[in-house]
C-alpha cells in the first residue's frame, strides 16, 4: 500500500506564504493605517512526490486548508512558488489555472455542501466535462459519467444518474463528489477532510475507495486532516502544521513511532483511544492556538510548550497569560490582594521584550517584584522563567526584560525534518551561553 519513498517530485512548494489581509475599521482605513494580516501559510517548503500520499495534519487555524487551496490556485499566494509539471501555479493566469485544475482536483469536507442540490448526480458528476469542453456529445458525457460512478461504487450507475443529492446518504454523496473529481483523469487529488463528517462505520469504506482509486489511476494525494488516526493508516509521509508553518515532516512510521516536535508529541498523546485502559495524560499543553494575525515571537508553539527554553521567544504577552492562569485558580481574597498591586496590565498586551509594569500605588514596586518571585519559586519548572533575562524593581515600577527570540528553522533530524530549537545545535549553544551569562550576573 505504501508508495515508494523516492519518487520524483510532482509538486515542489518553496517558501510559500499566503496571507489574508484584515480589513480595519472605516476610520483606520481613512487615515491609512494597516489593519494587519493573518499569516495563514507562513513560509512553507516541501515536495509532494509522484504516487505518494502526503498527510497535511493540523488543528483548526493551522493553515492546512489554505495551503491546499493555494496549491490549486483557489487562493492567491502572497509569495513563494508552487511548481507543478514545470509551471509555477502561483503565477498562472485565470485561463491557465483552468487548464491546471484538470490535472489537480479537490474533494471537500462537507459532501452535503459540495453538490448542487438542484442538479442531478449525473449532471454534477458530468459538469467538469462540459466546463472543460473535453467531450462533444451528450452520449459521450453519459458514458464517461457512468464509468466514473461505477468506479466509485455507485453501481449500477443507471440507478444514480437521475437522483438528487437529497436522495443520497452522506457516504454516497462523498462517493459522487469523488467521481466528479476523478472524471477528468487528474494526477493529483487534494482531499480536505474527506471523511471527517461521515459516521465511523462509513469512513473506512471511503478510505478504501480512495486507496483503490489511487492504484487504478496512479493518483497522488494530498490528504488534509486534523485526524492523526486516519492519517497514520492512510499516508506515506506526514507534515504537521501549526499556525501556518510545517513544524515536522517525514515518513509516517518515523513521525508516529518517534515524534520529535513537542507539538507532535502532544497531539499524539491527546487522542482519545477506544481503550478504557489507556488514559490521556493530564500534563498536556495549556491554552489554545493563538491568533494568527498576532503570532508569538520566536517559535509559534513556545507559549504552550512544556520544553521551551531561553531562545524560544518569551515575551510580555506570555506573562499576561501566566498571571491569568494563576488568578483563575486562586481564592477571591488572595486574587483581590494581588490584583490591587498591579496597575494597568495593558503593557503586557504587546509583543515586547522589555516591559515596565507600573504598580497601582507608589512604593509598591518591591511588592510587585515579590509576587513575581513568589510565582517563580512556587513553580520553578515553568519554562516561562527561563526566558526572563532580568527583573528589576524601583519605587513604582517593575522592569522585566526577556531574552532575544531566535526563529526556529526546519532542520533534518533522524530521517525527519523538525522546526524546534531542541534539535538545533546552534540554538542549544546560544541557550547555554545565556544560562551562564545569567549565572554570572544575578538578577537585581
Amino acid at each position, binding site marked *: 500500500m505504501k508508495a515508494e519513498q523516492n519518487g520524483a517530485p510532482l509538486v515542489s512548494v518553496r517558501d510559500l506564504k499566503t496571507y489574508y489581509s484584515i480589513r480595519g475599521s472605516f476610520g483606520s482605513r481613512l487615515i491609512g493605517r494597516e489593519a494587519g494580516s493573518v499569516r495563514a501559510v507562513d513560509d512553507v517548503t516541501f515536495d509532494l512526490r509522484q504516487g505518494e500520499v502526503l498527510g497535511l495534519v493540523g*488543528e*483548526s487555524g493551522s493553515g492546512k486548508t489554505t495551503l491546499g487551496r493555494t496549491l490549486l490556485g483557489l487562493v492567491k499566494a502572497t509569495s513563494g512558488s508552487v511548481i507543478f509539471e514545470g509551471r509555477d501555479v502561483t503565477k498562472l493566469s485565470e485561463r491557465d489555472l483552468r487548464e491546471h485544475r484538470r490535472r489537480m482536483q479537490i474533494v471537500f469536507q462537507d459532501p452535503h455542501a459540495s453538490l448542487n442540490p438542484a442538479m442531478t448526480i449525473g449532471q454534477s458528476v458530468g459538469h467538469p466535462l462540459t466546463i472543460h469542453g473535453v467531450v462533444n456529445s451528450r452520449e459521450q458525457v453519459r458514458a464517461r459519467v457512468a464509468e466514473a460512478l461505477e468506479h*466509485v*461504487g*455507485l*453501481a449500477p450507475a443507471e440507478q444514480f444518474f437521475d437522483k438528487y443529492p437529497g436522495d443520497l*446518504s*452522506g*457516504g*454516497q454523496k462523498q*462517493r459522487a463528489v469523488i467521481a466528479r473529481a476523478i472524471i477528468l483523469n487528474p494526477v493529483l487529488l487534494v482531499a480536505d477532510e474527506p471523511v471527517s463528517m461521515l*459516521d*465511523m*462505520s*462509513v*469512513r*473506512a*469504506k471511503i*478510505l*478504501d475507495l480512495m486507496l483503490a482509486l489511487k492504484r487504478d489511476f496512479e493518483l497522488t494525494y494530498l490528504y488534509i486532516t*486534523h*485526524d*492523526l*488516526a*486516519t492519517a*497514520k*493508516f492512510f499516508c506515506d509521509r506526514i507534515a504537521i502544521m501549526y499556525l501556518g508553518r510545517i513544524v515536522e515532516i517525514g515518513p509516517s512510521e518515523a513521525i*508516529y513511532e518517534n515524534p520529535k516536535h513537542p507539538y507532535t508529541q*502532544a*497531539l*499524539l498523546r*491527546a*487522542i*482519545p*483511544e*477506544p*481503550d*478504557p*485502559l*489507556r*488514559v*490521556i495524560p*493530564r500534563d*498536556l*499543553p*495549556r491554552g*489554545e*492556538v493563538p491568533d494568527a494575525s498576532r503570532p508569538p515571537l520566536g517559535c509559534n508553539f513556545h507559549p504552550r510548550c512544556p520544553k521551551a527554553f531561553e531562545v524560544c521567544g518569551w515575551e510580555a504577552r506570555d506573562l499576561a497569560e501566566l*498571571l*491569568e*492562569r494563576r*488568578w*483563575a*485558580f*486562586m481564592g*477571591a481574597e488572595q*486574587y483581590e490582594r494581588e*490584583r490591587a498591586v498591579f496597575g494597568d*496590565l495593558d503593557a503586557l498586551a504587546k509583543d515586547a521584550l522589555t516591559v515596565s509594569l507600573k504598580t497601582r500605588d507608589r512604593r509598591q514596586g518591591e511588592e510587585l517584584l515579590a509576587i513575581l518571585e513568589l510565582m517563580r519559586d512556587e513553580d520553578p519548572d515553568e519554562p516561562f522563567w527561563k526566558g526572563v533575562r532580568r527583573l528589576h524593581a524601583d519605587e513604582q515600577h517593575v522592569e522585566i526584560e526577556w531574552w532575544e527570540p531566535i526563529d526556529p528553522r526546519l532542520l533534518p533530524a533522524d530521517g525527519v525534518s523538525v522546526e524546534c530549537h531542541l534539535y538545533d545545535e546552534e540554538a542549544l549553544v546560544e541557550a547555554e551561553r545565556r544560562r551562564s551569562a545569567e549565572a554570572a550576573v544575578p538578577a537585581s
Partner: protein
Amino acid sequence: MRAVDGVSLDIGAGEVLGLVGESGCGKSTLGRGILGLLPEGAVSDGEVRYAGRDIVTASAKELRGLRGPELGLIFQEPMTRLNPLMRIEDHFAEALKRHEPDLNKREVQRRSLETLGRMGIPPTRFRQYPYEFSGGMRQRIMIALALVLRPKLLVADEPTTALDVIVEAQILGILADLKREFGTALLLITHNLGIIAEACDRVAVMYAGRIVEEGPARQLFADPAHPYTRELLRSTISLETTELHSIAGAPPNLIEPPSGCRFHPRCPDAMEVCPRKFPIPVRLEGGRRTECWLHGPEQEIPPGTTRPLERERLAVADEG
C-alpha cells in the same frame, strides 16, 4: 418516526454514563427527552424518573424549576449558546437570579467567579463578551454556567466535537473530574468511542432508537456482547488500526424500521429468528444487559431458527 423507542436507562448519583451511537440513532433525542426539552410535536410515552419525580408528565413550570438547579445541559456549539450581546458576567447573573432569587450581588459574583476559576477562566475576563474567548474557553464558560447552579445531573451532547484535539483532552479532563469536584452525575452523548473510553464508567450503545447493549465501560470494550457494538469497535479507526473494517449497509430509516431486531439486515451473526421476533433484553453477568438473540433467552427462540439468516448481499455503496 420513532427516534427513541422503548429505552430504559438508569444513571446513578455521581456516575458518568456514556451514550454512544451513530448519527440518527436517537441519542440526542434521548438526551433531550431526559431534560424534558423535546420539540413541539414530539410525543413521548413512558417515564423519566428523576429523584422520584416523573419528567415526562411534569408541567412546563415544574420543568423550569428542575432545569438548572437539578438538571443541566451542555451543547456542542458553545458559540451559538452564549448571547453575543451579553457579558459573561451577565450570563451568570441571569442564571443565578432566575433560580436563586435571594442571592445578593456580591454572592452572585463570588459563586460565578469561583465556578469559572475551577474551569480555568480568570476573574480578569469576567466582564468580557463571548467573542473575546476562544472555542475551548467558551465551552469552559458553558460548563461553568451549567455548574454554577450545582445540578445533580448534567447532560453533555457532543461537548467536544467542535474542538481541537488538545483542547478536547483538556475539556474531557474537566468532565471526568466533575464527580470528584462537584458530585455531579454526567450523561455524555457522543459518537466517539475514544471519548467514551476516556471519560465514562458505564456505556449504553444505541442503534436505531434502541439501547442494544449497556454495561461497565471496561467489560463492554474488552468483550462486546452485541454484534453492533463489536462491529462499531472494529470499524473505529484509531492509532492501532492496521486494516480497515466497516459495517455493511446503512442505519435503517426509523419511519419503517426493519422487522424483529433492527440490526439484523447488517448483522454478520443474524439468525433466522432475528427478523421474526423482536429480541428480548437479557441480563448478563457483571451488571451488563443486551438485546440480541445470540444471548437468548433460549426458551423464547422458536425451535430450528438459530440457523444463519440468508440474505441478499448488500450493495457496496448502500451506506449511511
